[in-house]
């Protein structure tokens, strides 16, 4: 399988999220309250990569209703649009995404764990895929949080597999504003011979007011050390609670 396809496939991974989330790439351990539906939208981009100059930058739009099914489970049904320089905008894929909390959403314990599983169904080329994540967080009494998200993107055909790891931290600045930072890496495991890890680091800022929240941030690739890593991956996310 061409290396660029694997790279694009990896970067097609758009985690479904819901509820307040101060991180732009990691799934938090927070979920939408039971019986509540949020409409979420993301816009994000992946810049060029020095090692593959023929691969153009890509832009994505992700949209989904996200529903709190129970005190433990949240489900999203996203659709994704993809656009690139000089190429038409296409409906890229649908997903069915479920996140299950180990403890109920009302738990006040500082340690929380969430499991995520998603089915990725492409509509304009690409591989069907299963995404899996295990996310753990520890929240301190002052509201600061540390988080570890370990995941995998597994092509159903078995042709490719990519591991992901995200180490993140956040802290409240005010009741409405939260600052986050992430160290994120994609780790090609299968189907990408010669592909090196793609590490990124970057900040994010989340603002919540009433029924609306928005998170913005950018991941900066450690491209000087890993030339196959894109320079930038900015992301803007927002949601409205119905």
């Amino acid at each position: 399988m061409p290396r660029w396809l694997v790279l694009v496939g990896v970067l097609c991974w758009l985690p479904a999220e819901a509820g307040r989330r101060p991180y732009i790439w990691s799934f938090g351990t927070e979920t939408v309250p039971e019986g509540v539906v949020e409409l979420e939208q993301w816009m994000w981009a992946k810049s060029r990569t020095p090692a593959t100059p023929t691969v153009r930058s890509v832009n994505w739009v992700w949209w989904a209703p996200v529903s709190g099914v129970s005190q433990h489970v949240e489900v999203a049904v996203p659709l994704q649009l993809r656009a690139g320089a000089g190429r038409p905008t296409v409906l890229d894929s649908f997903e069915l995404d479920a996140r299950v909390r180990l403890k109920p959403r009302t738990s006040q314990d500082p340690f929380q764990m969430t499991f995520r599983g998603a089915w990725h169904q492409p509509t304009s080329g690409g591989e069907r895929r299963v995404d899996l994540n295990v996310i753990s967080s520890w929240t301190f009494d002052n509201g600061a949080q540390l988080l570890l998200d370990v995941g995998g993107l597994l092509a159903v055909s078995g042709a490719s597999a990519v591991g992901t790891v995200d180490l993140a931290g956040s802290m409240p600045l005010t009741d409405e504003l939260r600052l986050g930072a992430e160290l994120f890496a994609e780790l090609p495991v299968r189907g990408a011979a010669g592909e090196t890890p793609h590490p990124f680091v970057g900040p994010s800022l989340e603002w919540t007011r009433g029924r609306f929240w928005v998170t913005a941030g950018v991941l900066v690739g450690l491209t000087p050390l890993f030339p196959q890593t894109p320079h930038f991956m900015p992301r803007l996310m927002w949601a409205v609670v119905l």
Partner: protein
Amino acid sequence: MGRRALRLALTLALLPGAAAGEAASGRVALFRKGGDGARAPMADASGVLVYATGFEAPAPGGPAPRMEQRDKAFLPPVLPVVKGQAVDFVNMDALLHNVFSPSPAAAAPGRKMDLGKYKGPGRVVTYEFRRTGIVDLFCDIHESMRATVVVLPNPAFAFARADGAFRLEGLPPGRLKLFAWAKGARAPAAVEVEVKPGATPEVQLELELQPEPATHADKHGRPYDTHPPGYGE
């Protein structure tokens, strides 16, 4: 002394958990302040909660305290619990309720208490209160539903009788502070008391109530009249 002082008082934990077996008793006089500023005595003081601070002790064993949502109202309207106790929120109505609280004592910084929407009858959601203080409860669907959970550092609390008399048990010897609080109180009434082994000190408290605000915001901080038609049905 406002709510901030009340929260500070409730977080005091000055004395170790020594054997707590003494008692204190007394009487609370309840007054209501009218719109004209005049203060009138109230005949029934049975809604006044009296409690002690200055020591921490766990709740006694037994079933979890229960806060019901019944006929679009919370029952009981005031529920005292000990820090660390879990409360069963039971929806007894065959319709959705969404219990929430904007109070800082309800959840960790950066989080809000929101039990989500669930329908009864009989559905239970359990919530643990880990911080002392006053927790105002509302329903995000039914604006008229109001209740209060008072999270205390120890189980030495009691409701006064209609005549204002009360008795607190399980107090450790030493200098403690007793408070009286009721819904509508701008600030709790307080008195210091010296508890000695074998003696039951008598104290007097006066508590003044004011009219409660007629409206409050929903869980997003918005007026209830911004809800779309059929919200919560």
